[in-house]
């Protein structure tokens, strides 16, 4: 997770969009514009006890004046949604981070198929808003138990018109992911919802031979790594071929220093980015708070991040 500004936003509206989903509109008490975002982005909501929960933005990315999120009360959850339902009313303050997008629309796609299960409609509604404004070709499938249980359904209907297909179990209608759409090279599918739905979409499209880069599934990686247990690994220096052993109780940065590989460093906490370096082959365990998801493909922060087995560093 890279660093994001946390703002104390005000709840401007709090509406129950279904019996168990709270739809919140958030504004900044002093600034007319919030940080910009694109469809598919989420924000972190910080709870008073320090825990963090992610919620997708479901409003219009073109509206810089407010953020909208929808929170489903999860009785079996870890308490974050119950706290939000009990405490976030009009006028209350929510500690919310600037948005980040790990689930963006594919810029090259010509047709977009959006598949929502329950509360998973939130990022897809923002996508539909962008696609509608861009006059792009899209369809939105909404799966829920009934119309009364489908969050934000009125907004979805008004926006999508006949581009919406609803699949309500109480009406005996269930989405068949094998019949979602015909394959074309410029069609992208986006699914968000319960695991069984996203897995069903993923496996149906895999079986039909869709390339993985045309199928997008939203899932949030756990933020906390309190249970992280460092393991030893090997690091190879690309320029010299030297193979360095990194014991479990030492950082890669320390081992590089000991072997005379000089690397700028500052915070040594994974937040400043000073020691960032490139890597090739190897599975890196990213534990910093600075590199973006895109950068993590070939960059790492050796002060806190490690590798599984081995990694080759571009040094």
């Amino acid at each position, binding site marked *: 997770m*890279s*660093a*994001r*500004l*946390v*703002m*104390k936003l005000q709840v401007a509206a709090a509406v129950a969009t279904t019996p168990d989903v709270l739809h919140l509109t958030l504004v900044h008490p002093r600034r007319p514009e919030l*940080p910009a975002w694109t469809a598919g982005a989420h924000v972190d909501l910080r709870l008073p006890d320090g825990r963090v929960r992610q919620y997708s933005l479901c409003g219009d990315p073109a509206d810089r004046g407010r953020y909208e999120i929808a929170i489903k009360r999860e009785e079996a959850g870890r308490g974050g949604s119950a706290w939000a339902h009990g405490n976030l009313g009009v006028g209350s303050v929510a*500690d919310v*981070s*600037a948005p980040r997008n790990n689930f963006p629309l594919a810029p090259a796609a010509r047709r977009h198929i959006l598949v929502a299960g329950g509360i998973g409609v939130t990022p897809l509604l923002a996508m539909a808003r962008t696609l509608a404004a861009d006059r792009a070709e899209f369809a939105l499938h909404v799966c829920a138990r009934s119309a009364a249980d489908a969050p934000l359904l009125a907004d979805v209907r008004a926006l999508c018109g006949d581009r919406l297909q609803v699949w309500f179990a109480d009406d005996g209608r269930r989405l068949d992911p094998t019949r979602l759409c015909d394959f074309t090279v410029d069609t992208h599918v986006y699914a968000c919802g319960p695991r069984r739905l996203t897995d069903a979409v993923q496996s149906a499209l895999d079986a039909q031979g869709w390339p993985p880069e045309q199928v997008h599934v939203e899932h949030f990686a756990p933020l906390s790594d309190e249970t992280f247990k460092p393991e030893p690994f090997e690091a190879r220096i690309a320029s010299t071929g030297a193979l360095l052993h990194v014991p479990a109780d030492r950082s890669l940065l320390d081992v590089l220093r000991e072997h005379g590989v000089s690397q700028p460093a*500052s*915070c*040594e*906490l994974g*937040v*400043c*980015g*000073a020691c*960032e370096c490139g890597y090739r082959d190897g599975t890196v365990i990213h534990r910093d*708070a*600075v590199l*973006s998801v895109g950068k993590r493909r070939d960059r790492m922060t050796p002060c806190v991040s490690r590798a599984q087995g081995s990694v080759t560093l571009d040094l």
Partner: protein
Amino acid sequence: MTDASAPRMVEAFAHPAGSIAVGVPGGAVGWRGSLLNIHTASAASYEMEERAEARCVAGRGIEGDRYYLGSGTYSPKPDTREVTLIEQEALDAINRNDPPLQSGPLHIAPIDHRRNLTVRGVPLNHLVGRRFRVGEVILRGGRLNFPCKYLEELLGQPVYLPLYNRSGLNCGIERGGIIRVGDTIEMVD
């Protein structure tokens, strides 16, 4: 909060930089500047909040600020950061893309840069190892501030390179008290 839970600070003139600078003569004298803005944030990554006045506590920091509370991004690492300052003149230069290190002008407002005090007419780069006053409070320059990629990420703006060598000053508080926007800033020695 008890003293036992107070964050560990490095006294300004005990800092590796400040301890050398204190014995080396030089630096601008005879200047007189002013305090333009006071900002604090309650925790790491939280947006800074503007204050009209604030209480400085010797050896600790500005009441209500993350480095006073030990909740700052860099709090786990002992250093001199009771109070941080930056020159408005440096922000003005960055805002006009001077020197042209950026693709165009960048707007860094006082609420954005995450230093506590924005000052005008104060040669901060001359003040490592020096004592100066802000209103009734006496500060000691401990080390030059250094930009970090964390700020760049937070702001979503490429501020790291433009801030290099004009990122401000990290200070310790020798004599505490109340600081107010508009306070005079001048040398003590």
